[in-house]
């Protein structure tokens, strides 16, 4: 593995941030092409490992991937530089856009355009949901947790962070019970990797 300069790290991730729309998995497909195939900074296996880590740690997947590639190449400083690179394009563009938006939001044409856009946004969120739904394991706990989380979040003002924490606690309890009865078989690790590799192959996902 060649040693990468901080500037190269920054430039590669800045470019990826600038030319990926929607982020997330769409960006991972581009990074794979750039980092594994073109620059050979990391191997495909490294990439898969990083996707697993990015998916199972908090935060935005595209940013997490940038952070872990940066860290692998140049340590903590590399992690910071790569992260900065990937978020800077959106930061600059969106900051500028926000001012345009606040200037126009009482304009009648702007409002009617966005009335239309909201209908489209609903569809985008529907698609995000169906895609995420396909990725979870199809078992009783998953269905139950999904319905409960949905109902509580929709019809009450209960803090969603507590819902996520409760999910973690339930998952831990279930795993501990299962692992007692099935002699420490690794439960979900294989599945996470399956999901990761499936996503690479499709590579056309939008969020």
């Amino acid at each position, binding site marked *: 593995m060649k040693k990468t300069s901080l500037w190269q790290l920054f430039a590669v991730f800045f470019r990826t941030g600038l030319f990926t729309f929607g982020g997330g998995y769409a960006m991972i497909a581009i990074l794979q092409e750039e980092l594994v195939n073109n620059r050979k900074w990391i191997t495909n296996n490294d990439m898969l490992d990083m996707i697993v880590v990015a998916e199972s740690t908090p935060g935005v997947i595209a940013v997490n991937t940038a952070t872990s590639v940066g860290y692998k190449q140049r340590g903590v400083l590399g992690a910071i530089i790569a992260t900065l690179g990937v978020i800077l394009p959106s930061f600059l563009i969106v900051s500028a856009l926000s001012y345009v938006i606040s200037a126009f939001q009482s304009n009648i044409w702007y409002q009617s355009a966005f009335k239309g856009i909201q209908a489209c946004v609903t569809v*985008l969120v529907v698609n995000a949901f169906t895609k995420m739904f396909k990725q979870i394991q199809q078992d009783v706990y998953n269905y139950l947790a999904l319905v409960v989380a949905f109902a509580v979040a929709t019809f009450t003002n209960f803090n969603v962070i507590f819902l996520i924490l409760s999910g973690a606690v339930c998952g831990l309890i279930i795993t501990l019970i299962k692992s007692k009865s099935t002699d420490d078989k690794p439960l979900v690790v294989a599945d996470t990797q399956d999901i990761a590799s499936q996503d690479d192959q499709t590579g056309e996902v939008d969020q």
Partner: protein
Amino acid sequence: MIYLLLFWEYFKIGLFTIGGGYAMLPMVIQVVEKHQWLTTDQLYNFIGVAESTPGPFAINLATFVGTMVGNEQFGFWGGVLGAVVATFAVVLPSLVIIVIVSKLLEQFKSSKYVQGALYGIRPVVVGLVLSAMIGIATNVVLPNVDLTNIPSSNVTPFNWVSLVMMCAFLPLSRLKIKGKKVHPIFMILLSAGLGVLLFGVCNISG
């Protein structure tokens, strides 16, 4: 101090977002409503903008909320500072966690506690996204209805035009032309055009 609050809320959002961009949406909606930083319309509109601008969806959303909040209170440079604070806060937790996890990669991957917690969290996140989806759809079709406080008599107009648009866009978004899906940006532009035509020019109001 608005910036401390912005930092704290976005730090929490960054810390508890598992599963990428859209998983963050329910938390952003809740926080924005709690502090009345933006109207729901401003937030939902921006989802369309975030999809059509480069960069990770969730970062776009953080930068936008930060800018709007700061701008409202302290003008232009206040907005810039707000954007920096929110964006920095949302990536900080993962930055720290990833650096730690990268060192302990093997232990992390095979830890049954980590995997167990994730197993528990994933469906919750999907349920939350479903909830955000219903919230947005309700806002489009039945503006002014709050699902946590459903009114006994239905007074708001039913926006059937948007409902028809939603029904038309759903199959369009799944359509594959020469093996490629219709790009979200194209759909957003199309829906903006339709919005101008139907709500602006023809002035059909729900």
